């Protein structure tokens, strides 16, 4: 990969990579670390392939880095206790993203955080980024059926966290803000 290609991919993919890391890790510093490391790896040993496959490559690298960071963060949390949740207020979001449904969206992120890091990342890839199950399976070298089982279990776990009342409230907030 030459520098021109790298710069183009950085421009095109940086928000997607950073956003995925933020949604997974919910910590701006960790998300920045993951994003920087992902792009450095792209520069050092990114494959010479088309942009679509480069995006898939970056997604896989970001996914793996998020899992690693999450494990490390879990170890630190176990030693020091959980971080201050108000740190989320300092997140850099687009102004237009701050809306009346913001708290409800944070609830969704809270619910996602109860899932194991790998499952959380897969859920975000499928439900948020809109990647097909087969695409995710190919990208991560996993079996589609095992992915379906994992998502099915995650849906059940999320339902336990986001009880029906909360789900309906979030849906209503979405309708109001939309």
């Amino acid at each position, binding site marked *: 990969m030459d520098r021109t290609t790298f710069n183009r991919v950085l421009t095109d993919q940086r*928000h997607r990579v950073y956003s995925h890391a933020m949604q997974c890790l919910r910590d701006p510093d960790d998300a920045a670390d993951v994003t920087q490391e992902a792009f450095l790896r792209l520069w050092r040993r990114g494959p010479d392939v088309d942009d679509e496959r480069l995006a898939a490559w970056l997604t896989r690298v970001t996914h793996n880095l998020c899992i690693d960071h999450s494990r490390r963060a879990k170890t630190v949390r176990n030693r020091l206790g959980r971080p201050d949740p108000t740190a989320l207020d300092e997140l850099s979001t687009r102004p237009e993203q701050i809306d009346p449904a913001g708290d409800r969206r944070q609830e969704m992120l809270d619910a996602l955080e109860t899932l194991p890091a790998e499952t959380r990342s897969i859920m975000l890839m499928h439900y948020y980024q809109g990647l097909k199950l087969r695409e995710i399976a190919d990208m991560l070298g996993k079996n589609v059926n095992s992915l379906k089982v994992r998502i099915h279990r995650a849906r059940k776990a999320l339902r336990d966290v986001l009880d029906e009342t909360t789900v309906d409230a979030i849906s209503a907030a*979405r309708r109001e803000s939309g």
Partner: protein
Amino acid sequence: MTRCELATGMLTGYVAGELGPMEQAIVAEHLAECAGCQAELAREQKLRALMGDVPAYECPDELTAAITAAVDAEPAPRHHQRTRRFHSWSGTLAAASLVAAAVLLAVVLPRSEPLLDATAVSDPQPESTSWTQDELDRAREDAQWALAFTASIIDKAEKQTMADVMRRLQEETFSGFRGRSTPTSPGGQG
């Protein structure tokens, strides 16, 4: 597995439109007659809508600048250094040749005597110094791997011409290998 379990297991794919026509029809047919699975479908659709609504985050400009600076500070990866093509090429070749030579020496040298000594074949050889077909095959595979590895490294380095040379070398080496009779067979030297 009950029909409900079957249908709920396919709901994610059903809502995402990822099922094949037959699976899609099976789930649709079951949903039409099962209130429990209809409720499950509604939950799946809600979850999908909510997940799509998770906040997006914009990569800060400072981070983009930091990434650019970090890449600037990195030495260019070897395959980017067009001006040093010959030097990087010869380095790759030397490393690959060492791998190939090491494998060949490790496998062939300890067994070289019966291969080279034609008269020794007429006498029964101790088991430890004669080549069995398995050993010969293994040696051939190891050496083939080493040469294929060499060719793949050169391929990666975009040295097409050298890769061709290595492939030819590989083919010629093993056509020679195949032509050589097995030393352990009694009539092997003929």
